[in-house]
């Protein structure tokens, strides 16, 4: 793969003496939507925390757009957009201030029109001047995703980003992300339990079990699964169960 947007090499991470992830290697190419699946507690969020430098791995290497997260964190993070969990957002800042802080951190002088248009499509514009602690879970989730998209980063990392969103907003967001990564030539790493995303949007998917990657579905295999007669979700769920065994 030439110049991957994200490259994870032999990653090892955990909390104190407990190892959660062992020997994880993934590379995301430009224009690729990569979905991380797996049962609860398998290490999906830990992996994302390592990628966004909220957790320091005990071994391995993470490169974002060719920059090592360990050796050149500033450069690596300039190419990263992360949709944090809604409870991490600052309760006493307004949505507008959160966006301004993110934009300033990325060295922007303005916020892109495409982001404001997405906010409008998601019916978020009315909440720009509301304090975060007054927003509902779904509205906070929208803000977290908008923050991830500030500065049009090549790598977008989202953790269960569609939780709490109403179906219409979720659909708008999925379509927007698909168009954005193709237009931008970026990549999206999403941890989720929604198999419909794998069915309709993902280019590749992987299942993580007990901290190791058990199976990666390449693009052609996913296409074969989609084309096969029968229930895609059932087939994928069965494949995950088989991987778990």
């Amino acid at each position: 793969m030439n110049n991957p947007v994200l490259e994870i090499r032999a990653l090892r991470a955990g909390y104190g003496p407990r190892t959660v992830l062992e020997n994880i290697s993934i590379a995301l190419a430009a224009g690729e939507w990569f979905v991380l699946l797996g049962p609860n507690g398998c290490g999906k969020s830990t992996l994302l925390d390592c990628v966004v430098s909220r957790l320091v791995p005990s071994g391995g290497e993470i490169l974002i757009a060719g920059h090592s997260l360990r050796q050149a964190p500033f450069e690596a993070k300039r190419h990263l957009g992360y949709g944090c969990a809604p409870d991490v957002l600052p309760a006493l800042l307004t949505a507008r201030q959160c966006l301004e802080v993110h934009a300033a951190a990325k060295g922007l002088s303005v916020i892109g029109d495409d982001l404001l248009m997405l906010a409008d499509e998601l019916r978020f514009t009315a909440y720009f001047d509301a304090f975060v602690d007054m927003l509902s879970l779904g509205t906070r989730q929208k803000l977290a995703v908008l923050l991830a998209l500030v500065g049009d980063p090549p790598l977008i990392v989202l953790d269960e980003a569609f939780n709490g969103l109403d179906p219409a907003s979720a659909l708008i967001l999925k379509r927007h992300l698909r168009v954005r990564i193709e237009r931008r030539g970026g990549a999206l790493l999403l941890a989720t339990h929604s198999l419909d995303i794998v069915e309709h949007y993902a280019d590749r998917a992987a299942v993580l079990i007990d901290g190791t990657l058990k199976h990666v579905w390449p693009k052609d295999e996913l296409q074969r699964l989609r084309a096969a007669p029968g229930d895609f979700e059932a087939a994928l769920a069965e494949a995950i169960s088989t991987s778990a065994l």
Partner: protein
Amino acid sequence: MSAPRLAAARLIRLNRRSRAGLKRTGAVLLSLSVLIALFWAEATAAPPLKWLRVHGLLCAGLAAVASAVLIARRRALKRAEFARSWLAAVPVRASTVRWESLLIETFPAIAAVGLLAIVSISYVLVLAITRSSDIFAPFAVWATLSGGIAAGAVGSFLVPQPKPVDLPPGSRYVPHPRLQRAANFRPSLSALGNWPIRQAFAWAQPKIISRAIIPILLGMPLGTTADAAMVAIALSATIGALLLVCSAVVSASRSARRWLAPLPVRPDAVIRAFLLPACAVIVAAGTLEALLLLVFNVSYRTSAEVGGCTAALGCLTASVVVVWNWSLRTRP
């Protein structure tokens, strides 16, 4: 599970203790150090003990008022919390709910009486070993204070039920920013500077302030003029605001670290954005403190020294905390 709230509270306490690594040997060592400290302070503790005995009624009255106010407040708060808690839908007998609530709501009073009892027994032991006269004086003080606390706890149930606490979001008490045009964005880190100030506003709710003023008023000697009382309240408010802003800086900088970790932000820029407004508020509070001391006929020099020291200490504490947090963040 017969008493789920108590069981959950116990388990949380046990988990906290094991996470903090506290062991029985630690508790024994702590008790021994308290005893040694009592030996050391035996001579110096005698006059305050005598004062407490002479003014037993006053102390008991103050303890009763404090206990009644705190428990009434705690009762309203705990009931509001329970209504929203994860245990709200657990089936529990009405009688269990009653005694469980009673224990939870009066816990601070029970803990205070217990703590006073431990200190009194330890002190009596020390007095017995050193063969001092009137070794039962600590028990008398304990009985007076405990009586006051117990009377206050009972009194809190006799006074009208406080209004239910609605646990509002913190931003209700924060000055709201001016509404702007939807597309009017000015990327800047300056909002980080507002965060600790807003946090201080969110904590300093009107109810809490009004309750904090009561002990200040009660602590004033008879014959105090209204002017002096106003200045004393203003001084206490200034010191309270300083403490709140310092605590808010600690809390907000910790939360900011979690939120901003994935961003390519320079630590020095964040530290500057955080500290400038907070330090400005701390310096203003120090200046106000000096002015209020002047009103109290304290000399110019002493007022300036106290105000300056307070401001310097506040700024130093806030700076150390923020720098520490952000230097931790940049470690590999």
